[in-house]
């Protein structure tokens, strides 16, 4: 096919991608957005296949079949609660693909490439491979294959950063001495190790930011590949993905009042042992689900605060049931969504949408916070750090300064939690010890089912 026609098709595809993001801004056009992106990618693939003759069609077919056989079950079967894990996996796949193409291109062009191309190629490989191992660790933490707590040791930041710097030094020497193959291998190995160390040191509660940052890296490395192959479609698509990840990461870290650097190297959760101990002897009041039901019976307005615990217990459907019953009783019900509740941006919204909660009941933090003062009951379901008043009051708390949902201002707080363990940030929650807090211990789903049964029995 004519080269100009290919370029024109690429422009069509770029246009469709931009349109797709535009349509994603609102719910009622969002599905159109998805289809526009699908059209864009199909056009891009077909245009490329017609322009570049693939000699080994058998390999291409195998790859497509394998890709569909892995991709379709993931796409169709993954439960909504596991979407953060699947996102981490897709970042791992995407960045590994980009990294492998980078390696192929390096061996193809070898020493004949000009310094600029080699430099970009090295940057692309470092970014691709560190994102790969970083995403694998993120996946393992989210899937709870490894503990979500940050792995922190003396000199962690220095060791972590020096692997990256050494990797970059090898990249520079590769640009200066293109024949130096050993530098190439060491650069890749160190990039892999850096990704591993970086994310191992980050706690579960920081995953929304980390996932967004990895998303951004995956995009930027795809764009770098576009520079190497002089393919503008790749540059634009990668830049769109990269900027999307960047914006989300900024929103997430703003919601925690922390900088990227602090999220990546802060190691929150490491120095909490002391704080916890001093609070061992403090009094908490545990109640049964019957007590919680009694309080809810007399409530005129209720705010439900969902968190990661709801996702773990898969309790979104019972939560919806509870809200239905309360609404039927003439009670005013709102859902308060903290931007970093859950394990990825928008996690709670998706779960509640799955359970069919009307999204005009979902309230963002800034809008709902003033309302807690006039709220009879705040029901906290597995949301810990985002409700911890220490963020407002205790300057020595690692959470201090983080905007939180002011549930402590409500007349009564019903706090449903698996155990008294601290949240993922490793910080004890001040809320447990307030006189207006009712702790109900147990699996969120079981507790809520009990409460619902009690509410039903009491009649209306």
């Amino acid at each position, binding site marked *: 096919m004519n080269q100009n026609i290919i370029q024109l098709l690429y422009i069509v595809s770029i246009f469709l991608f931009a349109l797709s993001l535009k349509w994603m801004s609102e719910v009622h056009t969002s599905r159109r957005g998805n289809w526009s992106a699908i059209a864009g990618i199909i056009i891009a693939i077909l245009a490329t296949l017609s322009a570049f003759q693939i000699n080994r069609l058998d390999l291409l077919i195998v790859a497509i079949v394998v890709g569909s056989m892995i991709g379709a079950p993931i796409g169709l079967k993954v439960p909504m609660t596991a979407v953060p894990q699947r996102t981490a996996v897709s970042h791992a796949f*995407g960045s590994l693909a980009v990294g492998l193409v980078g390696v192929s291109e390096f*061996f193809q062009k070898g020493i004949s490439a000009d310094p600029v191309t080699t430099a970009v190629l090295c940057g692309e490989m470092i970014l691709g491979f560190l994102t790969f191992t970083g995403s694998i660790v993120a996946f393992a933490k989210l899937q709870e294959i490894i503990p979500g707590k940050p792995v922190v040791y003396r000199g962690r930041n220095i060791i972590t950063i020096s692997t990256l710097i050494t990797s970059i030094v090898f990249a520079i020497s590769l640009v200066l001495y293109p024949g130096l193959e050993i530098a190439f291998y060491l650069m890749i190995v160190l990039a892999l190790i850096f990704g591993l160390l970086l994310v191992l040191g980050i706690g579960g509660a920081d995953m929304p930011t980390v996932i967004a940052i990895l998303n951004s890296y995956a995009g930027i490395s795809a764009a770098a590949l576009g520079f190497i192959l002089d393919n503008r479609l790749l540059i634009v698509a990668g830049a769109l*993905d990269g900027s999307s990840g960047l914006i989300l990461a900024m929103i997430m870290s703003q919601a925690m009042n922390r900088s990227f650097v602090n999220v990546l190297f802060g190691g929150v959760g490491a120095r909490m042992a002391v704080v916890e101990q001093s609070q061992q002897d403090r009094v908490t009041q545990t109640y049964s689900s019957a007590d919680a039901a009694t309080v809810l019976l007399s409530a005129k307005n209720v705010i439900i605060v969902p968190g990661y615990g709801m996702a773990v217990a898969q309790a979104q459907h019972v939560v919806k049931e509870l809200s239905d019953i309360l609404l039927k009783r003439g009670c005013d019900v709102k859902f308060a969504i903290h*931007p970093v509740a859950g394990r990825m941006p928008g996690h709670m919204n998706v779960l509640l949408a799955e359970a069919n909660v009307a999204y005009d009941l979902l309230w963002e933090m800034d809008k709902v916070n003033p309302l807690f003062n006039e709220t009879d009951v705040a029901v906290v379901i597995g949301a810990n750090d985002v409700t911890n008043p220490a963020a407002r009051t205790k300057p020595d708390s690692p959470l201090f300064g983080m905007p939180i949902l002011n549930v402590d201002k409500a007349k009564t707080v019903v706090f449903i939690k698996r155990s008294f363990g601290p949240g993922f940030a490793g910080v004890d929650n001040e809320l447990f010890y307030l006189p207006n807090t009712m702790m109900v211990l147990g699996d969120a789903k079981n507790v809520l089912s009990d409460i619902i049964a009690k509410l039903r029995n009491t009649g209306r």
Partner: protein
Amino acid sequence: MNDLIQQDFVINLLIFVLATFLGIELIRHVSRLLHTPLMALTNAISSVSIIAALIVMSESSNGFILALTTIAVALAFTNIVSGFMITERILKMFRRRLDRK
């Protein structure tokens, strides 16, 4: 020759910068409700890197390179398929609510 490469590089850099601004402007207006599907979608979009794998694949007959690019195509295609399917599934759930109103 070297000058030509540099010029191309500069133009590509310009495209990258402009596309980043475009992306930031577009994403800023995405409703918070949709951040999860947005991530699934942009992930699928960036898997257009499959075309890079296809291009490198077409230029080579070396076994090692063919193996790497085949794996890359399979990985990228996995993302494309699963990414669009998940996005569609999530968006359908949001959509359902709207239809009922």
